[in-house]
């Protein structure tokens, strides 16, 4: 809701606060309300109700679409943003963040002060938040949603603080909550007082979301629920600190590459990308990335990829810290191709492709493949070299030229009969007389891809007076109702 409000404010068409607005999402029986603003909540509108019902309650209700995927992405970004307080953060459901602040609260002057700082920072972002500190994920979830404002809960008073909260705070499904309420268990404390054996017997087969006993154990810390943070893999990074600023990282690169490859080799891994970062003395950083076509941990090769790229680094007034980080880390699968352990041909090929792509850019080094089509230029596709795409062998029985022009070149022709081959044509300012020909081979447009009105093509293999064999086509027919007179193009050359 607040994200929508901010977007509207940015677009300068935010509605005033006293108009009830709801965000709606699709439901089984028509749209249901995803979120409501304050005016709407005061009018008695609850999230989860159907929009038509709520319109009956509040006739001036304004309904907007909820961007659930956008909310999720924003929350994911917020997860990373929250790393400013602690290194382990994770998204919790659709509207929560869990931060494992163990050991980092003292940096902000204690837990209560940290909560105030968090709420301030979040409100600066325009987000209202309810925050609580608790020893377990489950307890923090319940206290943040149903507990007092900025609740700080220690190890020993979890029981008392959770006891007064409603059973909804146990992260249970709606049906289970309803069942517990029907059983007369209104608060978590009431559930705690029930003998453990009878709860276990009642919910023996229930999954975690419907099992109050397991949820209670999680909240009390009897059942482990670790925070599985994103990007928990160790970063493979080496750095070299310099005594005084320099301008050229070249002399330090071989050592950095060797150290990094040593780390990779110890982990049995290789990398596909390298990021070189230099930290400049004027408080700026400069990046340089290189990539390889196959997983590698060969320091010589990785060093060679930087050879002509180091000029792209902007050293400013010099830099005193160089870091080299490996990403795209994958396990190495080394094969010994020969019994005597000689050189590996495939390895050399991938290294060659890497060198060429590093120097000329990845778009310059490609591998032609055949695609399924009848149109000659669509048959020829390009993929990145050594991409390992299985070959689609188009079974073309017709003879095809050895070379194809990227853009067919239009020629002026003289013909005897409109449907036949030309008698003579002018291509690249030279007159070619047709000595022999074969064809036509008619290729119709692909109606499922082409725009309507695309004309068919009649291909001729022409031999001119000098013996050159040229692939020529006429686009369209006379009187086919798709434009004027057909045009002629040279499309390729035979050997």
């Amino acid at each position, binding site marked *: 809701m607040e994200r929508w409000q901010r977007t509207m404010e940015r677009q300068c068409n935010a509605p005033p606060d006293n108009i009830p607005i709801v965000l709606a999402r699709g439901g089984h029986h028509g749209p249901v309300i995803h979120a409501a603003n304050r005016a709407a909540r005061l009018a008695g509108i609850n999230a989860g109700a159907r929009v038509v019902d709520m319109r009956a309650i509040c006739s001036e209700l304004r309904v907007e679409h909820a961007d659930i995927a956008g909310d999720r992405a924003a929350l994911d970004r917020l997860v990373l943003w929250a790393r400013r307080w602690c290194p382990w953060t994770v998204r919790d459901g659709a509207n929560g963040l869990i931060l494992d602040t163990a050991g980092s609260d003292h940096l902000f002057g204690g837990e209560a002060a940290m909560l105030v700082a968090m709420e301030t920072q979040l409100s600066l972002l325009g987000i209202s938040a309810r925050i609580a500190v608790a020893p377990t994920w489950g307890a923090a979830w319940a206290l943040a949603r149903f507990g007092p404002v900025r609740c700080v809960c220690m190890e020993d008073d979890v029981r008392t603080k959770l006891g007064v909260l409603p059973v909804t705070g146990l992260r249970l499904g709606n049906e289970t909550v309803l069942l517990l309420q029907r059983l007369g268990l209104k608060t978590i404390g009431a559930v705690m007082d029930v003998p453990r054996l009878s709860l276990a017997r009642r919910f023996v087969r229930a999954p975690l979301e419907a099992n109050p006993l397991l949820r209670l154990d999680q909240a009390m810390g009897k059942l482990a629920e670790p925070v599985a943070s994103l990007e928990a893999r160790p970063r493979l990074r080496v750095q070299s600190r310099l005594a005084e600023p320099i301008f050229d990282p070249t002399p330090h690169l071989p050592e950095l590459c060797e150290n990094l490859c040593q780390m990779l080799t110890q982990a049995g891994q290789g990398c596909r990308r390298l990021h070189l970062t230099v930290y400049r003395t004027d408080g700026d950083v400069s990046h340089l990335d290189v990539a390889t076509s196959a997983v590698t941990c060969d320091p010589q090769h990785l060093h060679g990829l930087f050879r002509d790229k180091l000029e792209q680094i902007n050293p400013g007034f010099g830099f005193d810290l160089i870091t080299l980080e490996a990403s795209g880390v994958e396990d190495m699968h080394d094969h010994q191709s020969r019994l005597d352990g000689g050189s590996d041909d495939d390895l050399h*090929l991938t290294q*060659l492709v890497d060198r060429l792509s590093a120097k000329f850019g990845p778009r310059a080094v*490609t591998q*032609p493949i055949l695609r399924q089509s009848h149109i000659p230029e669509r048959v020829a596709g390009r993929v990145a070299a050594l991409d390992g795409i299985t070959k689609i062998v188009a079974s073309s029985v017709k003879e095809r030229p050895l070379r194809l022009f990227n853009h067919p070149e239009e020629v002026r022709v003289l013909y005897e009969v409109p449907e036949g081959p030309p008698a003579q044509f002018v291509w690249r300012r030279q007159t070619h007389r047709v000595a022999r020909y*074969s064809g036509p081979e008619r290729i119709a447009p692909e109606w499922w891809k082409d725009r309507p009105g695309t004309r068919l093509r009649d291909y001729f293999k022409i*031999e001119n007076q000098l013996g*050159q064999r040229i692939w020529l086509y006429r686009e369209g027919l006379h009187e086919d109702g798709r434009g004027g007179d057909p045009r002629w193009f040279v499309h390729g050359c*035979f*050997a």
Partner: protein
Amino acid sequence: MLTTGSLQSRKRLKDKAYQPDLPKQTLSEVFPKTASDTASTGFVLAQLARADAPILWIQDRLSRKEAGEPYLAGIGTARPIIMVDLSRAADVLWAMEDGLRCKALGAVIGEIWGDPPVLDFTATKRLAMRSEASNVPCWLMRRAASPNLSAARERWRVASLPAARDPHDPQSPGLPRWALDLFRSRHSKPGQWVATYDRASDRLDLVATVRDGTLATDHGAAMQRTAG
């Protein structure tokens, strides 16, 4: 006029690699007669030994525009091709040299337009020595170029000739025929031939021509002699 002594029928150039007295793979240059003449491409592809090692094919921008790109549907998918599209001749030479360091390649084919200053005797010598060191054949296609000083071990001029007669359709061109002119060669005798290439069997039939080249007038004779 053909003489029996000069008739070198069905000599396969690609068998050279297996003859012990001849050198191994090296740098060869091909000069097409016109820019759009594709006979040179067919000749180079016919000269490569049949294997599934990939080809590194490097083109500069003008060659790509004027002569077109290699078309996989016509060449066949027997071996992978790694295309490198560059713009400057110096880059083409750099990439060719780098490619010749890799013994896993089946061949390195470079196309350079005109006579750029970087393509001098030293550059071709480097290519030739690298090619011989790694035993990877290297072909340099030079369009709109003059055959000036070069260290290429073999230098060819290739032009299209009117095709052989198609046995099924007299109107249409049959097997392609090329005029080959080996005008400089380090290890064999220079000569001129008329070649007929059969793609289905990957077979290149050579017939020596006399110097005055009267053969061009009756193109059917060569094929009949060869067959007989």
